[in-house]
């Protein structure tokens, strides 16, 4: 049997036996990425909709900036958050560095521009069609934002999924601010990087398989939900 096949079968065995280490890492990964996407949704979606609906000086610059930040290198975010949370940083007193919360903060900063940029694009297209009627109904700026977010809710699943994909696959920022500490801040991506460098390939592949299956399952769920919603609401 080739080395690859042997490694792969060991990885499958780890998953089949519900290995405790794997389970712990997967649960923490879901908590960190889920928390980041939740915060990103609460901030990024209204932010994108506000930019789409608002008329203010610098709107184009802000839109370009948000689009540009979609490709923000995660290690840069990691270093910035590290500096902010380190003992000598402005938020050092909170003692957040090397905790899951620090990882959530870093991932939230990574997903906000992505989610806001997609939301801006989706909402802006709809706003162009609805603006006159909402204006006639004397909708305030905020009423327009909430109405458009509600109307675009099915399309905005894409923004949430994109954020989730970015958060779950990210390694640089969580490595820097989390420290990849065993049973404390080790998530799937940092564990894969570490185990590969140590030569423990079965665990790395097992975690990689879980990561891929999770992302595919969430995408399939979102696709099904969107398909149902399109049939229900048009």
């Amino acid at each position, binding site marked *: 049997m080739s080395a690859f096949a042997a490694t792969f079968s060991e990885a499958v065995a780890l998953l089949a036996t519900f290995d405790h280490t794997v389970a712990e890492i997967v649960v923490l990964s879901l908590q960190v990425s889920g928390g980041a996407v939740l915060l990103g949704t609460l901030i990024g979606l209204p932010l994108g909709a506000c930019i789409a609906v608002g008329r203010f000086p610098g709107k184009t610059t802000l839109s370009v900036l948000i689009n540009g930040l979609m490709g923000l290198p995660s290690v840069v975010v990691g270093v910035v958050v590290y500096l902010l949370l380190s003992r000598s940083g402005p938020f050092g007193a909170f003692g957040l560095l090397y905790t899951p919360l620090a990882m959530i903060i870093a991932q939230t900063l990574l997903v906000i521009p992505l989610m806001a940029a997609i939301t801006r694009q989706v909402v802006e297209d709809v706003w162009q069609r609805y603006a006159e009627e909402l204006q*006639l*109904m004397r909708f305030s700026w905020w009423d327009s934002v909430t109405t458009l977010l*509600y*109307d675009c809710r*099915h399309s905005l699943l894409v923004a949430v999924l994109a954020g989730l994909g970015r958060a779950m696959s990210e390694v640089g920022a969580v490595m820097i601010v989390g420290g990849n500490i065993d049973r404390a801040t080790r998530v799937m991506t940092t564990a894969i990087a570490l185990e590969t460098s140590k030569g423990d390939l079965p665990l790395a592949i097992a975690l990689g398989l879980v990561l891929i299956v999770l992302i595919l399952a969430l995408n399939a769920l979102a696709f099904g939900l969107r398909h149902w919603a399109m049939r229900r609401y048009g």
Partner: protein
Amino acid sequence: MAIFPLRLRDLRYQPNGRAVLAGIDLELGDEGITLVLGPNGAGKSVLLRVICGLVEPSAGSMAWGDEGARRPAQGVMMVFQRPMMLRASVLHNAALGLKPLAVSVAERKRRALAMLERVGLADRADDSAHQLSGGEQQRLALARAWLTRPRLLLLDEPTASLDPSASAEVERIIREIRTDGTRILMVTHNLGQATRLGDDIVFMSAGRVCEHTPVQRFFSRPQSDEARLFIQGELPWRMRFPSP
């Protein structure tokens, strides 16, 4: 504040120097249904947009009420040829106009449901608005506008591309809205509809009001050559689209 009479004086709209409205003089009293007729490109829809404040006129004046206010505080609504429909239920769409008002969600739903009853859509309240036919969507849009109790309702070809039975239903609702005390200004290309619905006709051509007369007189003795040719279906092309 009373919003009638509405007086338009030498109202012009000239984007990029092109005269879409080339000096409109018009006065509207506080009741009835006024139909705006005229060939394509006469400026009818733009006139409605200027009146409801969606388009800023280039020149001229618009005075609301005896006090001559430049803008009405409230009470002007417009229903478009293709009305906006949120991806939500019929009931949600009907209640939308009440959202900016200080009305509780329960009260919004109660009023919207009562209004859907009046326009014959109560049994579709829980369906998606996007599943409605064109005629039903137009009725829903009228219900949404009517629910806000407008003093002036502007209708931009509400029955365009509807079949006769759907048009008749829309016309019934328009009459009810008028009976309810709402002044209506409506653009149409349907001359039969103009005779059925209208109290008076504003005939426009090339961005101007050629005449403003009662319906019977408009069809029996049109005052302008443009109106006479339009009724006969012979309005020359060059008069519809004057060169800039």
